[in-house]
């Protein structure tokens, strides 16, 4: 057995030496990498709050060091201090903020475009909204018919439960109610008011328009709906005016921005 144990010992030593060398080399490399990541590198930071449009002075800046792994090429190094002194910052910054090259990005052209076309776009939106509100008012006619008083849902024999109309599914704002979306549900009487739709009125509300978003199992209420053909509620007016305003703004934005660029190209 002696040769076996001599060879065993030799194998053991060789393996230990090999493994130890391998780990030593790889750990040394990892340590070096780790030290590199945490090595301190200086960057410029704001010493005080700086408003947009401010021209940077030496007093606005200070220097701080951070681990290299957190430093990016977007940050201004102290060596570039002369490049940034006297430059105008195009964004608001606060004391302690790291100075970024992006702080000097030139937004003058889109800013000029915005200042020129924003009032026109807003005006286009307001005009479209007011036209839609006027049209809505004209459709209402005068005088407005008095709404019928809502009947209180009936209470069952026990005197504790009422049958009312509930939603079977989610219904988005503006959707016309279909029969499949409605069902009769029972609710404790103390939760039921004259706003709730009585079970026997289910067929009457089919075809009405939901003027707010509804969720499955919601108890339907009269003020959540309006006549789809002859709307008279403020919610319906908003439902018509808001998209008209959005559409007018979007169209004006496209057209005015294109016109501004054409004007720039012509100069």
């Amino acid at each position, binding site marked *: 057995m002696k040769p*076996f144990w001599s060879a065993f010992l030799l194998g053991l030593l060789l*393996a230990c030496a090999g493994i130890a060398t391998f780990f030593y080399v790889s750990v040394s490399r990892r340590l070096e990498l780790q030290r590199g990541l*945490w090595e301190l590198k200086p960057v410029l930071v704001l010493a005080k709050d700086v408003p947009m449009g401010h021209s940077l002075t030496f007093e606005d800046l200070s220097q701080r060091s951070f681990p290299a792994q957190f430093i990016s090429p977007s940050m201004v190094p102290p060596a570039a201090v002369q490049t940034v002194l006297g430059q105008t910052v195009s964004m608001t910054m606060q004391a302690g903020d790291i100075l*970024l090259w992006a702080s000097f990005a030139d937004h003058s052209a889109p800013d000029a*475009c915005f200042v020129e*076309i924003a009032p026109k776009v807003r005006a286009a939106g307001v005009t479209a909204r007011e036209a839609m509100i006027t049209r809505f008012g004209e459709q209402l006619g005068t005088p407005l018919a008095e709404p019928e008083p809502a009947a209180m849902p009936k209470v069952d024999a026990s005197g504790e439960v009422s049958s009312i109309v509930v939603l079977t599914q989610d219904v988005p704002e503006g959707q016309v109610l279909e029969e499949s979306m409605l069902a009769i549900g029972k609710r404790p009487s103390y939760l039921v008011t004259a706003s709730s739709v009585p079970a026997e009125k289910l067929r009457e509300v089919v075809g009405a328009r939901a003027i707010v978003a509804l969720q499955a199992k919601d108890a339907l209420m009269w003020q959540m709906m309006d006549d789809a053909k002859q709307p008279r509620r403020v919610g319906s007016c908003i439902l018509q005016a808001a998209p008209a305003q959005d559409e007018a703004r979007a169209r004006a934005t496209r057209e005015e921005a294109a016109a501004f660029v054409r004007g720039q190209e012509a100069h």
Partner: protein
Amino acid sequence: MTSSRRTRVILGLAAGFVAGSMGMGLVAGVVSYAVLKVSEVRLRAGWTLAPALVVARELEPGQRLSSDMLAHRDVPEEFVTSTAARPNLTAYVIDQMLIVPVHAGDVVRWSFFPATRGPEPRMESPFDYRIWEACETALAASPTHKRERTIEELLARLASRRGEAGR
């Protein structure tokens, strides 16, 4: 050397190698882990890290942020000032148009977006930023408008402006 003796030597060598590899591998693994952890703790000493929303890769102005362009990372707490977008507000940043060039690892700041860059230009409604974005997009498509797309282009302008001031 007889055949049986040679077999015993090879067997012994192999057994020793396997036993040594396993034993030393285990010990060296534990020691290496401990050394690296101790070193990391020593290097991190004095730095308090805070979670931040960072840019995952280099991006140009005009690009709209999506979730794959963003990452959460711990950074020195000094980076997370009130102008930085906190990770819990990621939803507000998604789909916003960047107006500056950024690099991977940059902490996302509200000043990177048109509506929150500063008090000017004055946005009167929450939808006004779309006008600014439309201007940016229309200008970017114009052959006559020179938009700085990278930090290098921005630096070149700053350097030339400084040169002009020096003359």
